[in-house]
C-alpha cells in the first residue's frame, strides 16, 4: 500500500473562500493509500514548505498530492521540496484547485468548490499511485557553438561566446560577414557611422582565436540534439585559396567583367571576382561562377595571371564538412520586401523611386556616390525627396500585417542625412503614425522635424508617377484634410522588413517553428524570447521579427549567455518527460518514427550473437525527445508510452472520474 500525503492549500483566502479545505483534507484521508492529510494557509510559504518536508519525513510518505494553485505556478517548488525531503520529485503531483476551481466557481456556500476540489484531488491521488520514479536525463555537451548568419547579432553572439572561452563557427552565406548593417550609412539615434562601429567587431571576430569564419557557406543538414548537434555545412567554392590570398585586390582591379552588385542593391556594378564591399571580412575575393568566362567557357583567366601568390584556383569545388556543436544560434536576419509588391509607388518602374536601404547606400561614404545624394536616373542632386513610410508594412492586403518597427526611425534619419548633405533640399514624409519609442528616439524624430525641416504629412500616398523628369506624388494630408501633390525629384520607400526567403527551409532543417510571416517562433514570446522549441537552438536578431540594432545586439549577447550556460558543465540535465519503447511489444511498423515531430525516434537493429539482424525496434533518443506524446497515440500496440503522462496515469485519472 502506498503512503500518500495530501496537502490542501488555503492560499490565504484565495482557495478557502470557496472551498472547505479542511473537509477536503478529511475526506482525502479516507481514501485507500492516503496516510496523511492536512489543510494549510500558505503551502508555498517558507513555514509551509518546512511543514511539508517535516510531514513527509514524519509520516514516511512516498507520494505527495498538493491541492493548490496551478502546477504552472508551484509544481517545481513542491517537487524540489519533496526532493529535499528525500523523495523522488516525480512522486509529487499538483491538483489545480485555485485557477481551475476556487477562482472560477464563486459559490459562497463552498458546496460547488469543495465537491470539485474533492474530485480533482481524488483524480490526482489515483494518478499519483501510477507514478514511477523518474530521474533527470543527463546528456554530454559539446562545448562548441554554431552561429548561422554573420550579421551584427551573429557577430555579437560569436564574440561573447568566444570571450567565454568556447569555440564558435560563424556560417555566412555571403562572401563577407557584416550582414545588413554593413550597408547602413549612419545609425540612429546617435548618428555614428555604421561601418565605424561595425568594422572593428567584424575584424575582432576574424582575429579571435576561438572564432572560425565559414563565409560563402550554407547549412545542409542538422542531426542530433541539444549538446550534440552534427551539422553538415556546404562551403561553396570561392575559387580563391584562402590560405594564400593576401587580399591585395590586383585580381578585381584587373578583372574585365562586371555584374550587378548585390551589396549595392543594383545602384552600381561589381567585378566578377569581387569582395562585396571594401571593408569585407575576410578580405578575400570570390569568383562569381555564374558570370566568369574562364569557368563558363575557359576564356580569360586574367585574375590568375595577375595574382602574385597564385591563389586563384578554377578547379576548386564545393566542400561538404560535418562538424559537431552543442548549441546552434540562428541569426539569419531579414530581407526587404521585393520590388514587385509596390506597383502603386512606381518602385521598379520609376528609376528615381528607391528603397530606404538604397538610400542608405547613397548616403554612405563608401557607397556608389561616395556619400553624395544623387538621383539614380541622371545623377543630379535631388532638391526635394518624398519619403513614404509603411511601404508594405501594416497593410495586410498588399503587404504584411505587422509594423516593421525601424522605418519611422530610419526615415527620420534619412531626412536629416539629406538636409545635412543637401542644405536646400526639402524632405517630405508621408506617415501613418510615428513610432519612436526608445531611448532618445522621440527626441531624434523631433530633431528631424524641428532642426532639419522635414515636412511630415500624415496620410497615405495614393499615386506616384513620372512627369517631366519629376516624380509626382499624390496623397492625402489627413491632418489638414486636403489632397496634396508634390513634385519631387526622388521618392524613398520605407519598405517592409520580411523574413528571409530561405527561412522555411532552414526552419525545417533545424526543426523550429515559424509564424505566418515566416519569422521564427520563440519558445515563449515574453519569457523565453531567444529560445526555440528545439532545445539547444537559439534565435538572435531579426530572423524572429523586425528589430533595430541595439535589440539585435542585446539578443546576440542573450543567446551567448544561453550558450555559455549550456556549456558551463560537461553534462546537462533534462526533464525526463520522454517517450519510452517497450521492446517486447514493438512491431517495428515505424508509425512512431514517421509521426515524431522531432525525428527523435530511430530504427534500431537487434542482432544476435553472430551479428545477424533478428528484428528491428523503435528507439527513442532522449536528447531529442520533447515529450509531446504523438508517438504514443500512433502506436497501435501501445508499445510506446510517455514518462510523466503514461497510459496508466491517464487511465487512473479517467477511472476516478
Amino acid at each position: 500500500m502506498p503512503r500518500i500525503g495530501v496537502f490542501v492549500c488555503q492560499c490565504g483566502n484565495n482557495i478557502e473562500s470557496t472551498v472547505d479545505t479542511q473537509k477536503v483534507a478529511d475526506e482525502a484521508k479516507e481514501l485507500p493509500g492516503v496516510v496523511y492529510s492536512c489543510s494549510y494557509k500558505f503551502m508555498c510559504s517558507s513555514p509551509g514548505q518546512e511543514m511539508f518536508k517535516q510531514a513527509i519525513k514524519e509520516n514516511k510518505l512516498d507520494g505527495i498530492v498538493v491541492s493548490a494553485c496551478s502546477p504552472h505556478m508551484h509544481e517545481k517548488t513542491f517537487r524540489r521540496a519533496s526532493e529535499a525531503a528525500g523523495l523522488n520529485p516525480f512522486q509529487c503531483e499538483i491538483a489545480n484547485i485555485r485557477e481551475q476551481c476556487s477562482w472560477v466557481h464563486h459559490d459562497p456556500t463552498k458546496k460547488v468548490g469543495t465537491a470539485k476540489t474533492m474530485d480533482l484531488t481524488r483524480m490526482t491521488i489515483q494518478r499519483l499511485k501510477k507514478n514511477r520514479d523518474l530521474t533527470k536525463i543527463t546528456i554530454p555537451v559539446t562545448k562548441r557553438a554554431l552561429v548561422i548568419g554573420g550579421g551584427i547579432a551573429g557577430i555579437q553572439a560569436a564574440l561573447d561566446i568566444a570571450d567565454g572561452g568556447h569555440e564558435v563557427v560563424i556560417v555566412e552565406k555571403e562572401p563577407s560577414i557584416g550582414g545588413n548593417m554593413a550597408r547602413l550609412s549612419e545609425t540612429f539615434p546617435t548618428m555614428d557611422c555604421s561601418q565605424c562601429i561595425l568594422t572593428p567587431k567584424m575584424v575582432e571576430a576574424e582575429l579571435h582565436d576561438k572564432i572560425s569564419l565559414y563565409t560563402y557557406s550554407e547549412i545542409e543538414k542538422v542531426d542530433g540534439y541539444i549538446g550534440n548537434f552534427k551539422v553538415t555545412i556546404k562551403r561553396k567554392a570561392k575559387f580563391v585559396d584562402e590560405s594564400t590570398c593576401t587580399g591585395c585586390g590586383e585580381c578585381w582591379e584587373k578583372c574585365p567583367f562586371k555584374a550587378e552588385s548585390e551589396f549595392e542593391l543594383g545602384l552600381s556594378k561589381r567585378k566578377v571576382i569581387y569582395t562585396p564591399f571594401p571593408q569585407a571580412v575576410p578580405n578575400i575575393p570570390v569568383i562569381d561562377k555564374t558570370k566568369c568566362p574562364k569557368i563558363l567557357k575557359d576564356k580569360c583567366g586574367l585574375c590568375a595571371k595577375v595574382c602574385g601568390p597564385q591563389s586563384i584556383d578554377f578547379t576548386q569545388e564545393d566542400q561538404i564538412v560535418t562538424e559537431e556543436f552543442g548549441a546552434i544560434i540562428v541569426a539569419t536576419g531579414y530581407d526587404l520586401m521585393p520590388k514587385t509588391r509596390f506597383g502603386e509607388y512606381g518602385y521598379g518602374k520609376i528609376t528615381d523611386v528607391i528603397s530606404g536601404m538604397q538610400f542608405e547606400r547613397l548616403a554612405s561614404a563608401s557607397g556608389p556616390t561616395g556619400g553624395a545624394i544623387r538621383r539614380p536616373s541622371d545623377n543630379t542632386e535631388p532638391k526635394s525627396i518624398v519619403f513614404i513610410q509603411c511601404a508594405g508594412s501594416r497593410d495586410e492586403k498588399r503587404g504584411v500585417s505587422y509594423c516593421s518597427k525601424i522605418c519611422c526611425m530610419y526615415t527620420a534619419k534619412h531626412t536629416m542625412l539629406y538636409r545635412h548633405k543637401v542644405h536646400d533640399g526639402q524632405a517630405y514624409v508621408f506617415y501613418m503614425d510615428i513610432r519612436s519609442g526608445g531611448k532618445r528616439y522621440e527626441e531624434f524624430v523631433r530633431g528631424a522635424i524641428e532642426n532639419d525641416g522635414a515636412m511630415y504629412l500624415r496620410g497615405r500616398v495614393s499615386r506616384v508617377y513620372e512627369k517631366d523628369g519629376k516624380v509626382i506624388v499624390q496623397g492625402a494630408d489627413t491632418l489638414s484634410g486636403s489632397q496634396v501633390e508634390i513634385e519631387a525629384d526622388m521618392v524613398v520607400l520605407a519598405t517592409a522588413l520580411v523574413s528571409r526567403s530561405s527561412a522555411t527551409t532552414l526552419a525545417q532543417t533545424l526543426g523550429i517553428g515559424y509564424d505566418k510571416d515566416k519569422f521564427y517562433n520563440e519558445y515563449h514570446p515574453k519569457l523565453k524570447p531567444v529560445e526555440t522549441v528545439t532545445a539547444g537552438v537559439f534565435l538572435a536578431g531579426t530572423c524572429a521579427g523586425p528589430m533595430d540594432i541595439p535589440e539585435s545586439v542585446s539578443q546576440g549577447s542573450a543567446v551567448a549567455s544561453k550558450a555559455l550556460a549550456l556549456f558551463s558543465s560537461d553534462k546537462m540535465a533534462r526533464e525526463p518527460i520522454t517517450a519510452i519503447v517497450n521492446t517486447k511489444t514493438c512491431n517495428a511498423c515505424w508509425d512512431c518514427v514517421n509521426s515524431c515531430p522531432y525525428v527523435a525516434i530511430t530504427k534500431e537493429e537487434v542482432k544476435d550473437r553472430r551479428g545477424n539482424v533478428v528484428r528491428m525496434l523503435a528507439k527513442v533518443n532522449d536528447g531529442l525527445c520533447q515529450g509531446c506524446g504523438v508517438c504514443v497515440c500512433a502506436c497501435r500496440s501501445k508499445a510506446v508510452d510517455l514518462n510523466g503522462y503514461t497510459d496508466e496515469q491517464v487511465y487512473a485519472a479517467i477511472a476516478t472520474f
Partner: protein
Amino acid sequence: MGKMEKELREKAKELLESGEVAVVIGYGFNRRKTRVTPVFITDPAETDKLVFNALCVNNLSIYLTRKYKDVQRIGRPAIVAKGCDIKNIVVLITEGQVKREDVYIIGMTCEGVAYKQELLKEKLVPEIMPVKCHNCDVRNPHVTDTVIGEKSDFTPPEEPTGMVFDKIKQIESMTATERWDFWNEHFTRCIKCYACRQLCSLCYCEQCITEKNMPQWIETSAHPRGNLAWNLIRAMHLAGRCTFCGECERGCPVNIPLNLVNQKLVLTVKNAFDFESGYDENVHPPMIVFKEDDKESFIK
C-alpha cells in the same frame, strides 16, 4: 481455371526446385474437395495440391506477418495472391512488416470469388460475390513478381456500388439513436473470438491493445461495453490502412457487418485526406502524417 492452375503449379514447382523460395503459400482442397483451405507447399512434388478457383476467398497475406513464426522459419515464401490480397501486402511493406524482396508474389488475375465458400453451389454468380469484387480495380494484380492468368478487362464502376455502400448511406441517414441501436444489436453479439483480428493481415501486432492490461484499455469481457470499445478501436486502428479485403466480416462467426465500419472509414480517409490504401508501398499511411490545411468543420 484449369489452365491457370496448371501455370500456377508449374511456376510453384520451378520456384521450389530452383530454391528461389522455400515455401509456396497457396490454396488447396480439403479432404472432401468441397472447400478450399490454405496450404504450405515445400516439396516440388506436391505442387499439384495447389488450386485456384472461386472458393479461394482467404487473404493469405496473414501468413507473411511476424505472428506466423513457424511459417517464417521455413524460409523465403512465395504467395499466391489476388489483387485484393496484394493490397494488404503493399501495406505490410509500407509499414516495415515485410520487405518487398523477401516475398515472391504470384499474382493471380481474378474474376471474383465467393463471399463465403458455403455460398458457392456450382458456378460463381455475381449475387454471391462480395462487394469488393464488383468494384475491383486490381483484377490484374498490381504488385507482383509474376502474373498467372489471362488479362482481365473488367472495369470497375466509376462510383463504388453495392450492398455495403448502400447500407452505409442508409445508416448515415438514420438518427443517432437508430444508428446506436443498429450497432449495438450487432456488437452485443460479439463473442470476442478475435477472428476479425486474426484474419486481418494488418492486425499484425504481436500484442494487441486488448492484450495490454496495464492498463486494460479494452475490457476483455464479451459484454456490450467491452464489445463496443473493441470494435471501435479496431476500426480506428485500421483507419487509413484497411484495404476492404473483407476478411474480418467473412470470418466473424456471429455475422457482425464489419465491412460497414471499415468501409465507412475508408471513405472518410479518401474524402478527407485523399488517400486509398494498398496501392503504393512508398506512401506513408495517412493517419501518421498530416497537412497543415486538413479540412474539418467540427473543431470550434
